[in-house]
């Protein structure tokens, strides 16, 4: 590393590693915090905590998914499906309130909070609360921007913030899009994702481009470790070209996707009037089941409910994901604001395509990841809505 110092800034921030050695890299990274990577499973890929048990000859049992395309997004690393906030304990006739911030420090993305709590004790105390998210696709990186807008704006959500700040994101250029993908419609370049460290892989290497101070810090701490120099190489002269060609290829692949032509043009701030009363909602929502599948797999959906659970000993106040598709969503003493399925269905898509950009400088709260297309039990989705409404049904 030291000998490379004379080279240009850009080059010092670019490193590479042989694909075969990723297991070793993960082992190093997991020492710096909890490492999550996309892993293939029976139900498709999901972000899992790397538990790198070293097998023979440094072959690790846990392999990164080649698809990088997880069923759920990685948002629950920052915004878990359920999370305890505080606890009320009735002691005789007194009530005692405790903050659950202990758990905040220890929580991870598993919705098995029981499991999560148990395995935290073993973690190195110093790094226990650091999180490293590896292999995040461009669309998901973009989705964090949407979530940040919601949770980090005042009043700031401290629970989210604490986790977000402690997380280093290794993004990964997306070479394996699905037929349901349409991130390019939202101006996202799948070949060149944002993140703290932006990665791209070809058949032989993963290339790292350090994009933030957080990324820089982590990478240099890695380089300081012994025997890491063996695996983490500086890039050679031909590498920039390999990377560029790989990027071109990924872009080309994205352009050929069946949904790449979906246009966001007709939507955005100020279009409420155009779509709100459209008769098309009736047909679009007719077969919606009102389940929360789309919401829960969505990387940008950020609604939650706060509920109390009586354990018998005390009452735990926790929050959990909620879905605007549910009939009891934002139910108040006066009733629900959106009584019919049509209204709830409309809310979800109007929020993604109109309301959110209106309040957030034109930023759509959809990143075209295609998860809801894959998950919807009735195959009704945002693309169909956009095509129907954008195709003139709106006016």
């Amino acid at each position, binding site marked *: 590393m030291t000998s490379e110092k004379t080279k240009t800034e850009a080059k010092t921030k670019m490193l590479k590693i042989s694909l075969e050695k990723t297991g070793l890299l993960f082992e190093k990274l997991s020492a710096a915090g909890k490492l999550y990577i996309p892993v293939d499973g029976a139900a498709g890929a999901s972000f899992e905590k790397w538990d790198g048990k070293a097998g023979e000859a440094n072959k690790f049992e846990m392999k990164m998914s080649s698809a990088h395309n997880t069923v759920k997004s990685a948002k629950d690393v920052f915004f878990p499906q359920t999370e305890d906030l505080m606890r009320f304990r009735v002691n005789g006739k007194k009530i005692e309130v405790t903050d659950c911030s202990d758990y905040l420090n220890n929580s991870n993305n598993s919705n098995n*909070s*029981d499991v999560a*709590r148990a395995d935290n004790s073993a973690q190195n105390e110093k790094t226990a609360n650091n999180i490293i998210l590896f292999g995040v696709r461009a669309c998901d990186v973009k989705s964090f921007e949407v979530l940040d807008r919601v949770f980090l704006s005042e009043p700031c959500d401290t629970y989210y913030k604490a986790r977000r700040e402690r997380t280093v994101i290794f993004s990964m250029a997306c070479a394996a899009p699905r037929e349901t993908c349409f991130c390019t419609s939202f101006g996202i370049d799948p070949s060149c994702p944002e993140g703290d460290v932006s990665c791209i892989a070809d058949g032989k290497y993963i290339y790292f481009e350090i994009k933030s101070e957080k990324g820089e810090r982590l990478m240099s701490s890695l380089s300081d470790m012994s025997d890491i120099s063996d695996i983490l190489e500086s890039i050679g002269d031909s590498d920039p070209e390999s990377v560029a060609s790989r990027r071109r290829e990924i872009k080309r692949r994205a352009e050929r996707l069946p949904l790449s032509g979906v246009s966001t043009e007709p939507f955005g701030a100020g279009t409420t009037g155009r779509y709100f009363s459209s008769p098309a909602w009736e047909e679009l929502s007719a077969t919606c089941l009102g389940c929360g599948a789309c919401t829960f797999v969505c990387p940008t959906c950020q609604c939650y409910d706060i509920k109390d*659970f009586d*354990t*018998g*000993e*005390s009452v*735990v106040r926790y929050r959990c994901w909620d879905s605007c598709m549910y009939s009891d969503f934002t139910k108040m003493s006066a009733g629900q604001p959106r009584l019919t399925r049509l209204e709830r269905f409309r809310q979800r898509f109007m929020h993604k395509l109109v309301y959110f950009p209106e309040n957030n400088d034109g930023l759509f709260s959809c990143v075209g990841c295609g998860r809801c297309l894959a998950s919807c039990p009735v195959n009704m989705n945002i693309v169909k809505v956009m095509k129907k409404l954008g195709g003139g049904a709106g006016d």
Partner: protein
Amino acid sequence: MQDKQINGYRPKIAAFCCNWCSYAGADLAGGNRLSYPCDVKIIRVPCSCRVDPIFVLRAFRRGADGVIICGCHPGDCHYTSGNYHTRRRMSLLFSFLDYLGIERERMRVEWVSASEGAKFAAVMNDFVSEISKLGENRRLEDVRCKEQTETRLSEER
């Protein structure tokens, strides 16, 4: 085995008893001073058919290690057919929980008539010793409930 502890472990047992037979049977066991472990706590229901599978799960959630449902003997139900329904529901529930890997031995249905005080005590003794052998219910527990009970207990100590 009166109020005896096995390795210091005391199981928690919820016993649902129908008002007409089993609850009266339990009363008779009392009347005849037939003892059984105090870990058994009885909940009175009009008929064993009032026991919803949800109650059984609720008991396990709240840390029960065993659940026993007692009703009139088949054919003797005060409400004609209540215990026949119990018999089917619980047969299926137990088999289903077993399928999910929950120890079948933790759940039981017993028919105890109002005149079977001795049977009631014997059944409870047997059930408690069986549950004591199984130990704590680990597979169908809600850690949120258990964790906090443990906190309270350690504080009390």
